[in-house]
């Protein structure tokens, strides 16, 4: 990483693609994803780590991208909601969210999808309590969480089913 005037050049991988960008050291990863890389799927809800709308995966870890500086992304592998669908095929979580009406306004949805993905990678067969505990860092004001929990359970079953095949 090197500096150009006050800006820093960062190299990283975002949704399996190599990217390079210039950013100021005060910019958050959230800001850079949205404004510089134009990946606007990740949302700002509070900008201080309390709502989870900006959730992304960084090297497989679930992170509030508003609480991470963009310069910290050097050499990291970042996954955002735009990377969930592969080659035009929706991720089972995305399919489940549509089928279960697990979204209303859709603002918290990208963050909850990334958070759920992280959960299912750790616990392929979560209980209702596992899901509620894990998603407690993602606020939703519209749905009351009911359909979201059902969608995550359905997606976990689908994923396990496809793993068995």
């Amino acid at each position, binding site marked *: 990483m090197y500096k150009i005037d006050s800006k820093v050049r960062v190299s990283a991988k975002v949704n399996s693609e190599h990217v390079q960008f210039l950013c*100021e050291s*005060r*910019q958050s990863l959230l800001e850079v994803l*949205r404004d510089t890389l134009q*990946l*606007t*799927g*990740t*949302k*700002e*809800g*509070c*900008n*201080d780590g*309390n*709502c989870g*709308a900006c959730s992304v995966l960084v090297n497989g870890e679930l992170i509030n991208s508003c609480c991470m500086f963009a310069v910290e992304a050097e050499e990291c592998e970042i996954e*955002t*909601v*735009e990377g*969930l*669908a592969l080659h035009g095929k*929706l991720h089972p979580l*995305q399919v489940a*969210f*549509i*089928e279960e*009406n697990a*979204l*209303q*306004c*859709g*603002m*918290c*949805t*990208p963050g909850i*999808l990334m958070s759920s993905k992280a959960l299912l990678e750790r616990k392929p067969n979560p209980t*209702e309590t596992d*899901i*509620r*505990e894990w*998603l*407690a*860092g*993602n*606020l*939703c*004001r*519209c*749905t*009351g*969480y*009911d*359909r*979201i*929990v059902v969608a995550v359970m359905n997606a976990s079953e689908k994923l396990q089913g496809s793993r068995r095949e």
Partner: protein
Amino acid sequence: MSKLKPRPPFRVVGSAPKRADALEKVTGRAQFSDDFYIPRMLHGKTLRSPHAHAIIKSIDVTRALSLPGVHAVITGADFPEPSVKRLRLGEAGYVDVQDMADNCIAKSKVFYDGHVIAAVAAENPHIAEEGVDLIDIEYEILTPVMDVKSAMADGAPVIHEDFTPGAFRAKTEKVLPNAGGLLLETGNITTAFSDCDIIVEREYTTETVHQGYIESHITTVQWDMNGHINIWTSSQGHFQIRDQVAVILNVPMNKITVTPLEIGGGFGGKVSTYLDPLAAMLSKKTGRAVKMAMSRNEALRATGPSSGTWSKVKIGAKSDGRIIAADLECAYEAGAFPGGPIGPGIMTATSRYKIPNLRLKGFDVIVNKPKIMPYRAPGGVQSNFPVESLVDELAEKLGRDPMELRVQNAMQSGDRLIMGLPCPEFDGKALLSKIKSHPHYKAPLEKENQGRGMAYAFYPHIGMQSDAKLTVNADGTVQVCTGSCDLSGTRTSLAMQAAEILGINLQNISCSIGATDAIGYTFMACGSRTTYSTGIAVITAAKKILSEMSGRAALIWDTGSDNIEFNEGEFSCRDNPKKSFTFKELASRLDETGGSLSASATVSPNDIGVQVAGHLVDVEVDIETGKLEILRYTAFQDAGKAVHPELVRGQMQGAAVQGIGWALNEEYFYNEKGQLANATLLDYRMPTSLDVPFIDTVILETPNPSHPFGVRGVGEVSIVPPVAAIANAIYNAVGVRLTSLPMKPGKILAEIKKLKEH
């Protein structure tokens, strides 16, 4: 009962197709306000008062203007006199334009912590924030008034010298500082109470709570060189935003176009403009587009929450269970400017019961908090909580089952509401019976510190004006365009209503939302009106399409239009049934029979509709810590006709969880200086997935005669019952009656201790 004609079974309405906008939302491609940008746009940030009540003595923007990267700074002095005093909204009320303009940016005085004083446009948001820090303001700090009782007390500091109390005040009432009033009376409560065998009476308080939408307020505005203002923003009503901006900036309404973007939650909090006039003025000064976004801190400090309240309620009954008198006095915070929800709050306090002697008194109290805005069934929670709690208490004292007492006194269609209004068509008793016969009602509770409670609520839904335009394409597909913003799937439920009338598949219909220059005037997406009122507009336009297409078929078959029948998607000749066209076939012939086909409809349904809900909740209270766990929750609501039952369920569940938050943990904390101390989503504690169980739902369908399919509005009422249902459940669990919100562990524990000491 129902005045609806019998109809064939629904083909599309009542099914649960995938939402048309869901794919864009799960892939992160839907364009919300902050996702929109214009090349070379600047970014605006606001300077907000840290004082709750102060006079602005001076503003010096010199230092801010000389910061490299800052392009313009504005203050209240940059704004003209509004062009009108009031924006009337029919039966939905009115907006005092000067108040609204002053709320957007202060003139000589600030009225709450977070009140905008100035705004800066700069190359990026960081520089704009730095510019804000370089503005120098001198204040004369005044004493803030932070709760309704202090505001109404003798000698309270008067916040606005020039406000007028409301229309329904009795002239003999003392004029209170800072308070407008409303008094509705019927019968004679003095003699009625002396006739009562049982009377229950308590005082209640509730705290200020926020709608808590996950998307904050964001707008992008470009003031063109030819004087046209383009606004791209999410709101609940882009026509109202246009009108508000027009009158605040004193600009003709046709010189403003508002293009709606996807909205990340509203709940009533996005019906009023905040940033648009500021961004417009910055755009005018800089010659560039300007985007402004409120931080979460700013949204909590400065955008309309719902009223905290104080109330005193007294209800009396005869020993046979007839509730014959109710006296309710409820002071609602209005926030920094008058116009809180006392109207609907007071009117819905007891409307679901037939009580012949009533005195309902409301106060709209100005306090140094942000201007109160609607929050899902405005005013409803605050008046329902005391009444439903006291009805339970009355039942206990009368030795009656609380459900049976409610059924005995339930208002039904054909009765009269307060003010003599004929009660609109609904069936409260059917809802209450449904609750009673549900397995949840009798399911055994396992532990001593568990309890079950219920509450019942009734809230009107409005009609108001909606515009819809349908176009039939040559390939038989149809476009529907309306003026209603889509908060949670109404584009789909509107397309379903069109599909039902036109007899075609839902996949062949797309539904969009027109900008203010593309569709006729449409009232906000609020008051649970979209599926109902805009649905009627869509249906009316669809019927016009069918009528026109019948005319085209008649032309082709060389017969009269009255010889054409339309049945299940096919046009046929009455006297020669072999002659028929499917919708698609006829659409392909439009070109040769007169050209393409569009139809529009403007409707303004003026029936008062009723939303009604009852919720049942089981709770467990930890008597060591006061912590409450919700074990089981069932929400019952009458949807009239559920166009898309899953979307209806979603409304019930979402509203119920908002009500749970209101009941248990949400409140605004102000410090002694009147500054909001918990302006983050950590400390303004909304429910998480871990705080609530599955919310079971039961949908009843008592058709609403003023909609062709029987649709009732459904969006709001389910926020109302949770608070009292939980309060009643706590009493049944551990024997304490909470009379102040939120019912947090410390309060529950304190009441348990008090009970033990007696």
